[in-house]
């Protein structure tokens, strides 16, 4: 802390010294060289003399003007440099710049280690920036940050209640000790110290993790926060000093940064409701999980125009309907990206127009689908993962023409907590990365019987070795893709509903908020499915997503199977909503069916989430719930059997040994 103490003692001084007066002006232009000569030679000579004088005067003025311009230019340049260096002395300004750099690096390169190092450096820098705002006890701002670092990195973010009891008590004890010794001056700095912790998590992907673990619905606001909010830069903007220096040296630049930052934030956050939040206990994942979650969520979100830019354009083009304009621009940019960048269609061609029309139809369909949520009570989903050991031969050498006999092994680990019975068939494929993109299937060692794994236990592991086909000589870089085709998986979901019979408006006004609060907090009004590869979403009500069902109205039953994993649904063999005992009048197809009722979309051409729709129908409320005294709660179960395909890519290279 000695080093910190020395540095901290310099905090609080105004950052950026006042600039000196803008450079010295250039030396006075040389006085016009007066024409020599007096009045000799009469008028002619006089004129000559006068002309000479005038010319000299003009030359002098031109020289003076040039000199003045040069001086002004130098002064402006000097002022600009002063501005920048003055501003740079503000820690907050540095955080703004580095925050933007870090954000751009993440956007372009993903969660590489340098981005993580940036986050940690900004974490420490933000302490300085916040400490500048305090008058006393600045060093105490580091205390909660230090406690957090110890807890997160040394104790691995242990959240066990018994551990937390001791750790939190000790932390509080240390804080109180500081507070006593500093006579209460350390309380405010310690609270300030919590801010960098929050921003660290916001930056490395807390929101995307909440989307995955706690089922935030991805609203436009959340989308903006995930894609377009550079959190550290935001913190830097918020902590910019109101007056960087007494002499106003760097104020202009800092004020521009502040105003620009606030405007950006306002545009990004404009006009949306915050999603309904339902918190449940969750495990605290590592930073790698956060980063990975952020990437996964970003991958789910299509590439669209920056909402800030959309807002700006719409303010001028459609000032009376800016939100609608923004939504249309966002949708149009998304479709344009899909057809131009992904489908590689030339804009202006019939193929391009046809692609736009097709994607628009898919989007409309997506808007109508019923949503579901991951069941937060199911902590262990069914997973399958390809793993590679440190001995995986990413780079090998072969003599020219040598048929390399090294195989490419991968371990497939399947976790099956619900003890389902299914099979996994593994295959592999090589695709060269050279100019001639050659693609050919590999052979799993051992033959046809060895490429299948039967899963019956809670955890199954098997190693599959992929070899190039006989006679094929590998030379160069390849993308090796392992594919696991999983058959006969079961997606199970449950849906809660409340039947109130016939009630008057006063009863409904009093009781519906209570029922929603007691039984449908967060997203529990949606069907809850295990967070496996695919989730069966279903709903019934009027409208379908309304969890309160009244008598006298038709009830809509709707369902779909949604791909929530990283692979593809390749088939649906059956689906069954457990409603036949209650809703006897429902169409059979609506309640249950097999593959003949199911259309699997062409996922190669669909960039919205893969969703397989089942038939929808309407029914009456069951007679047993036509009249109830207070209300009745019921839970319905549903299941679907499906096939799934997962892939994992790995880059390999075979280099030819020199002869």
């Amino acid at each position, binding site marked *: 802390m000695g080093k910190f103490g020395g540095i901290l003692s310099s905090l609080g001084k105004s950052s950026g010294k006042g600039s000196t007066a803008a450079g010295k002006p250039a030396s006075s232009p040389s006085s016009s060289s007066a024409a020599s000569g007096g009045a000799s030679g009469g008028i002619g000579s006089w004129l000559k003399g006068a002309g000479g004088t005038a010319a000299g005067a003009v030359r002098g003025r031109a020289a003076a003007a040039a000199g003045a311009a040069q001086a002004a230019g130098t002064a402006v340049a000097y002022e600009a440099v002063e501005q920048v260096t003055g501003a740079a002395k503000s820690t907050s300004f540095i955080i703004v710049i580095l925050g933007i750099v870090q954000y751009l690096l993440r956007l372009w390169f993903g969660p590489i280690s340098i981005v993580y190092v940036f986050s940690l450096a900004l974490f420490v820098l933000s302490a300085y920036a916040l400490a500048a705002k305090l008058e006393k006890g600045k060093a105490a701002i580091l205390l909660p940050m230090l406690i957090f670092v110890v807890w997160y990195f040394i104790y691995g973010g242990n959240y066990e209640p018994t551990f937390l009891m001791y750790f939190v008590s000790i932390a509080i004890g240390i804080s109180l000790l500081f507070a*006593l010794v500093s*006579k*209460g001056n350390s309380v405010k700095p310690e609270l300030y110290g919590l801010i960098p912790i929050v921003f660290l998590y916001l930056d490395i992907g807390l929101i995307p993790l909440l989307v995955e673990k706690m089922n935030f619905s991805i609203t436009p606001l959340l989308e903006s926060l995930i894609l377009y909010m550079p959190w550290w830069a935001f913190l830097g903007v918020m902590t910019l000093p109101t007056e960087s220096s007494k002499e106003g040296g760097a104020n202009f630049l800092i004020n521009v940064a502040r105003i620009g930052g606030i405007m950006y934030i306002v545009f990004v956050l404009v006009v949306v409701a915050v999603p309904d939040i339902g918190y449940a206990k969750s495990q605290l994942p590592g930073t790698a999980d956060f980063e990975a979650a952020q990437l996964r969520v970003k991958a789910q979100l299509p590439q669209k125009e920056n909402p800030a830019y959309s807002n700006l354009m719409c303010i001028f083009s459609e000032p009376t309907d800016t939100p609608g304009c923004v939504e249309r621009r966002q949708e149009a940019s998304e479709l344009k990206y899909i057809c131009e960048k992904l489908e590689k269609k030339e804009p202006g061609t019939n193929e391009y127009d046809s692609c736009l029309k097709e994607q628009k139809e898919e989007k409309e369909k997506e808007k109508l689908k019923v949503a579901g949520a991951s*069941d937060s*009570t*199911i*902590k*262990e989903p069914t997973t399958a993962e390809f793993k590679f050991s440190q001995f995986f031969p990413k780079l090998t050498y072969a003599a020219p023409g040598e048929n390399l006999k090294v195989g490419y092994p991968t371990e497939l680990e399947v976790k099956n*907590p*619900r003890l389902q019975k299914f099979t996994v068939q593994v295959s592999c494929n090589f695709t060269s990365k050279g100019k001639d993109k050659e693609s050919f299937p590999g052979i799993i060692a051992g033959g046809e019987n060895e490429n299948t794994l039967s899963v019956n236990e809670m955890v199954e592991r098997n190693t599959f070795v992929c070899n190039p086909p006989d006679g094929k000589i590998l030379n160069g870089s390849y993308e090796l893709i392992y594919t696991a085709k999983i058959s006969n998986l079961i997606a*199970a979901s*449950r849906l*809660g509903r*409340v039947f109130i019979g016939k009630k008057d408006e*006063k009863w409904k*006004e*009093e009781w519906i908020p*209570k*029922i929603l609060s*007691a*039984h449908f907090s967060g997203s529990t009004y949606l069907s*809850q499915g*295990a967070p496996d590869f695919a989730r069966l979403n279903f709903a019934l009500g009027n409208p379908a997503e309304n969890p309160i069902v009244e008598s006298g109205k038709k009830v809509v039953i709707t369902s779909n199977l949604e791909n929530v994993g990283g692979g593809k649904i390749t088939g649906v063999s059956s689906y069954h909503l457990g409603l036949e005992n209650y809703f006897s009048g429902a169409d059979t197809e609506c309640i249950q069916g097999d593959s003949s009722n199911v259309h699997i979309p062409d996922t190669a051409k669909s960039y919205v989430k893969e969703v397989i729709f089942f038939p929808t129908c309407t029914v009456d409320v069951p007679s047993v719930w036509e009249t109830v*005294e*207070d*209300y*009745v*709660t*019921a*839970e319905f*179960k549903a299941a679907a059997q499906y096939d799934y395909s997962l892939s994992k890519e790995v880059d390999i290279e075979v280099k030819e040994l020199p002869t």
Partner: protein
Amino acid sequence: MRPIISIITLIIVLSLVLFITSCRGGTPQSVLDYNFKQGIAEVKMKFMDNAPPDKIYPLSKFKIILELDNQAAYDITTGKVSLAGIVGDYFLMEETEKELDPLQGRSMLNPSGDKVQVEFSGTSGQPFANAKEYRNNYYLLLKYSSKMDFGATVCIHPGLYDMYDSGCKTEKSKSFSGQGAPLAVTNLEQIIYPSGVGAEVEYRLLVKNRGKGKVTLVTFHGAKLGGEPLECEFRQEDGTTLTTAKFNEKKQEAMLICKTFLKDQSSYLTTLSADFSYDYVLEEKHTLNLVK
């Protein structure tokens, strides 16, 4: 340090004040003298220990046992306890509703009031799929009917312009702390209009729910001033008047208007009494936890 010391000092002083003011002096009152029909009192509900248990394991039997203690000064005539919102897949209850026998209130003959235990039996299911737990919020509803009697001594002074009347002094308005029930007359207004050889007297009784639950309906059964019956009605929102008043979530009070005519005479003290019956609902939210 200084702010902390100040806060601690304040807490100590407040505790002392609270302790001192709550002590009562004087000789204890006997049951015979004690007036049970005062203050606000109602039926108290509580669960018996471990019924239901904090954690219920799958496929096991459990009980929800509720103890009802009538602390009001009036009997409960008709009552029902019900459980709303329990999901049968996880907690299958044999019954979700039970009728209550009449429950006596506190009185001279029964100073502690009647207590009764209501039992609900159930069997638990299994959490969904491989979930480790399931939490089921539900409402415990106690609905009953009871009554409330109001009585107050009022000064009648029909001859308003008598300057030398040495009788009682009329009070325009009087407040009351309750009549030993959740429903209470909290305020009484007396308005006297000189009229001919006497005066028209109007009493306005503010009837309000002061309990933790909700009153749904209040019925007026009769009022007397001295020994003479009074004509009274509840004033409704639409201006009409009735002998019943419906209470709702937002409005838990009603105004009872009573009118009579008194002949000119000296002022005197007399009793104003009114009888009411009401329907009451007490609701509490609880949770059943199913854990593997």
